[in-house]
C-alpha cells in the first residue's frame, strides 16, 4: 500500500514559515502556494522539476491562508489573516493585484470561485460567509453577507456545476447556501461531526460532499432531491443531505484537508499526524451506503502537520501537499489494482 503513493520531489516553498495551502490552475500547469511568510508563490514545471515562477509578496500584511484560481485561469484570489482578500490578474508570468476585497471583521480563512466565474465566496473568523459578484469591469460588489454559523468559518467551496455554496465551521457543522430572489439563504445544515469541520470537497458529479474534521473522521454526504426513490425526507422543495459514510479509525489526529480527484474519484486527506492517506470507493458499493478503502498511506509525508492536499486537474495521479514545515511535496498515486 505504501508504494501506491510515491514521492516525486520536495521543495522548501516557504522557508522558516508554514505553507498553508495549494491550488492548481484549471490547466494543471501552475501551482499556487501561500504561507505564513505573507507571500503567494507560483510554481511551474521545468522538465522534471518545479520552479518558482513568481512571488507575490506585496499583497498582504499577515499570513495568506488560502489561494484559489478563477475557472478561466486568469485570476488568483488570496485570502489573508489581515482581513482582506486580494484579486490578482495574470499577465504572462506577472501577477498584478487588481483589487482588494475588504469588509470582513477579522481573519479571512478561505476564498473560492463559483464555476461561472462571476461569483466569489469568502469566509472568516467573524463567523460570516460573504458572496461577491464581479462585473465586466472587474469591479467586485458584495451580494450577500451570511451569518448562519455560530463560530469561525474555516472553509468555503462551490459545487462543481451549480451555484451552490458549502461552508465548514468551528461550530461543527457544514452549511449549504443558494440564491433565493435577490439574496442568498442557508438551505441546509449538515450535523454529525463532533468537532471543528476543517475542509470540504465535492465529488466530480457534485452529488456528494466530503467533509473532514478535528474529530478525526471524514464524512461523505449525499444529496437527495425531493421525490427521491430512496424515500429520504425533504423539506418542501429543498434538497436534503444525508451522511452516507463515515471514515473513522484511520487518522490519529485532526484532518485538516480533504481533496476529491475530479478525474479518478480518489479521496486524499491531509492530517495533523504528518501523514497523507488516499481512499477509494469500493467497486460495486451501494451508492446509498458507499464503502471506501484505504489505498495509500504515507506516515511521515512531512515532518509536521500536513495542511493541504491537491489533485492535479489534468494529470491523473499527480498530487501536491504542503505542511507546517514550509515544504511543498509532489506525489504520484498509482493504485496497485490498476484503476
Amino acid at each position, binding site marked *: 500500500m505504501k508504494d501506491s503513493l510515491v514521492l516525486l520531489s520536495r521543495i522548501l516553498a516557504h522557508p522558516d514559515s508554514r505553507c498553508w495551502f495549494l491550488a492548481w490552475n484549471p490547466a494543471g500547469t501552475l501551482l499556487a502556494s501561500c504561507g505564513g511568510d505573507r507571500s503567494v508563490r507560483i510554481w511551474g514545471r521545468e522538465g522534471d522539476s518545479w520552479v518558482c515562477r513568481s512571488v507575490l509578496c506585496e499583497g498582504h500584511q499577515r499570513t495568506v491562508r488560502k489561494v484559489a484560481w478563477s475557472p478561466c485561469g486568469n485570476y488568483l484570489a488570496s485570502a489573508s489573516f489581515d482581513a482582506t482578500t486580494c484579486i490578482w490578474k495574470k499577465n504572462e508570468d506577472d501577477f498584478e493585484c487588481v483589487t482588494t476585497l475588504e469588509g470582513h471583521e477579522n481573519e479571512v480563512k478561505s476564498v473560492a470561485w463559483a464555476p461561472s466565474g462571476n461569483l466569489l465566496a469568502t469566509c472568516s473568523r467573524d463567523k460570516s460567509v460573504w458572496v461577491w459578484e464581479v462585473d465586466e469591469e472587474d469591479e467586485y460588489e458584495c451580494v450577500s*453577507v451570511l451569518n448562519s454559523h455560530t463560530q469561525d468559518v474555516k472553509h468555503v467551496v462551490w459545487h462543481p456545476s451549480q451555484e451552490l455554496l458549502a461552508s465548514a465551521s468551528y461550530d461543527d457543522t457544514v452549511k449549504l447556501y443558494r440564491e433565493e430572489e*435577490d439574496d442568498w439563504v442557508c438551505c441546509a445544515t449538515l450535523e454529525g461531526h463532533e468537532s471543528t469541520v476543517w475542509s470540504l470537497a465535492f465529488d466530480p458529479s457534485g452529488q456528494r460532499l466530503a467533509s473532514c474534521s478535528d474529530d478525526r473522521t471524514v464524512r461523505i454526504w449525499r444529496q437527495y432531491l425531493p421525490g427521491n426513490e430512496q424515500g429520504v425526507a425533504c423539506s418542501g422543495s429543498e434538497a436534503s443531505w444525508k451522511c452516507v459514510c463515515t471514515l473513522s479509525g484511520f487518522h490519529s489526529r485532526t484532518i485538516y484537508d480533504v481533496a476529491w480527484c475530479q478525474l479518478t474519484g480518489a479521496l486524499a486527506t491531509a492530517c495533523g499526524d504528518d501523514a497523507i492517506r488516499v481512499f477509494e470507493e469500493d467497486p460495486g458499493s451501494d451508492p446509498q451506503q458507499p464503502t471506501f478503502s484505504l489505498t495509500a498511506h504515507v506516515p511521515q509525508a512531512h515532518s509536521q502537520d500536513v495542511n493541504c492536499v491537491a489533485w492535479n486537474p489534468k494529470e491523473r495521479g499527480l498530487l501536491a501537499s504542503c505542511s507546517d514545515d514550509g515544504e511543498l511535496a509532489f506525489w504520484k498515486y498509482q493504485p496497485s489494482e490498476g484503476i
Partner: protein
Amino acid sequence: MASPFSGALQLTDLDDFIAPSQDCIKPMKVDRRPGSGVAKIHIEDDGSYFQVSQDGGMKKLEKAKISLDDCLACSGCVTSAETVLITQQSHEELRKVLGANKVSAAPDQQKLVVISVSPQSRASLAVRFQLNPTDTARKLTAFFKKIGAHYVFDTAFSRNFSLLESQREFVRRFRGQANPEQALPVLTSACPGWICYAEKTHGSTLLPHISTARSPQQVMGSLVKDFFAQQQRLTPDKVYHVTVMPCYDKKLEASRPDFFSQEHQTRDVDCVITTGEVSKLLEEEGVSLAELEPAPLDSLCSSASAQEPTSHRGGGSGGYLEHVFRHAAQELFGIHVTEVTYRPLRNKDLQEVILEREGQVLLHFAAAYGFRNIQNLVQKLKRGRCPYHYVEVMACPAGCLNGGGQLKAPDTPGKELLQQVERLYGLVRTEAPEDAAGVQELYECWLQGAGSERAGRLLHTSYHAVEKAGSGLSIRW
C-alpha cells in the same frame, strides 16, 4: 441563541464599545456573618447554587445579574459584551420603577413615568391584535397608564424635528460644497446599528459624512427631559423616560454618553423596550390589547393635541430620503416634486432617486438598507466613487418595520407579516413636518429659533471613532 441585534451590530463586535476592565465593579452584596468560616458551595443538578454552612444548612444563592446600566457604568465586563446586552431585563427594569412608584409614598422618591411609542412598534402591535392604528395608539395609552405610566407620547412627533433638521442640514452642506468640511454625501444618522458600525470601521472616512441630526428617539429624549420636565416643574432626573422601539440597537443608542446629562446625572432615554417586550408586559398582565377601553392620546404641548396619530411619507424608516429630497429640490432648484420615484437597483434594499432637468442630474439620492448594501456603499466612498449626494442608511433589510424587536407570528411567514405591518403603518395620515401642530411653536418657545445654540445642542449630536483596542485583555488569541 441567535443575536437579536441588527446584522451590522453583530458584525461590529460590541466588545469594542465595551472593553474588558481588570475588575468587575458590580457591587456585590455580601452578608457578613461572624464566625462563618469557609463557605462551601454546592451545585444542584438544575444548575442552582447553594451555600452549605458549617451546620449543614443550605441557603440558595442568588444569581448575579448584570443590567445594561451596570455594564456601561463599569466600562467593561469580563464576559462577552453582547450576551450581557441581550437584556430581557429592560421591561423588568420598567416594572421595578413602576413598582417603586407604587410602594413609595414620599413625593420626592416618585418618578414621572413617560413612555414614547414608535410608530413602527405600534404598527407591529396593530397587526398582532388586528386593530387599526388609532385604536392601537389609544389602547396602548390605556395599557401603559393602567400599569402606572403617567404620559404616553408618539415618537412621530419628535420625528418632525429630526426631519426638519435633516432637511436644513443637507441644503447647507450642499451649498457649502467648496468647504472640505462640508462633505457630501450626507449619510443619515437615525439608525444606531449603522452608527456603531461606522464609528468602529473606517471612522475617519465615514463620520464626517454622517448627519448630526438626532434620531426621533433622542429628540424625544430632549423634548421629555428638557421641555416637558420643565413644564411639569420637575428636574430631569425625576422623569423616567421609556421608549418603545422595533429593535434592540436602540438600547445601545440610549446608552451613549452623548445622551447622558452630566449636570442632572440622568439619561435622555432611561429605558428602551422592544415591541416584543411590550407584548410580554401585556401577557404578564393577562391583558389583550383589543379588550382595553381606549384612552385619549397625550400630547407634548396643547397645540399638538390630536386624537389620531399622524405620520410621515417615505416609508417605514422615517422618510428621510423623501423629505430631504423634496425639500432640497425646492430650496436649491425651485423644483416642486409631488411624487418621489424610487428606482430599485441590484436588490430590493437598494434604491435610488434622481432629480433631473434638461438631461442634467441635479440630485442623486439613494436608500441603502442591510449590511451588504452598507458594505458596498462604504467601499465606494472609500474609493471616492460614490455617486450620491444623500443616502438613507438602515442596518435592517426592509428597514425599521422589520427590526429585530418586532413581533413575530408563528403561523405567518415573515414576508407576509412584514407586508401586513407595512400596510397598517401606511394607514396613518401623513403630514409635512413643518405643518405639524406644535412644531413651530416649540422651535420658537423652547429652542429660541431654528438655528439657535439650543437647537444645535438639543437636536444634534456628534460621533466618535472607536480606537482599535490596545488593552492586552481585548486581544483575541
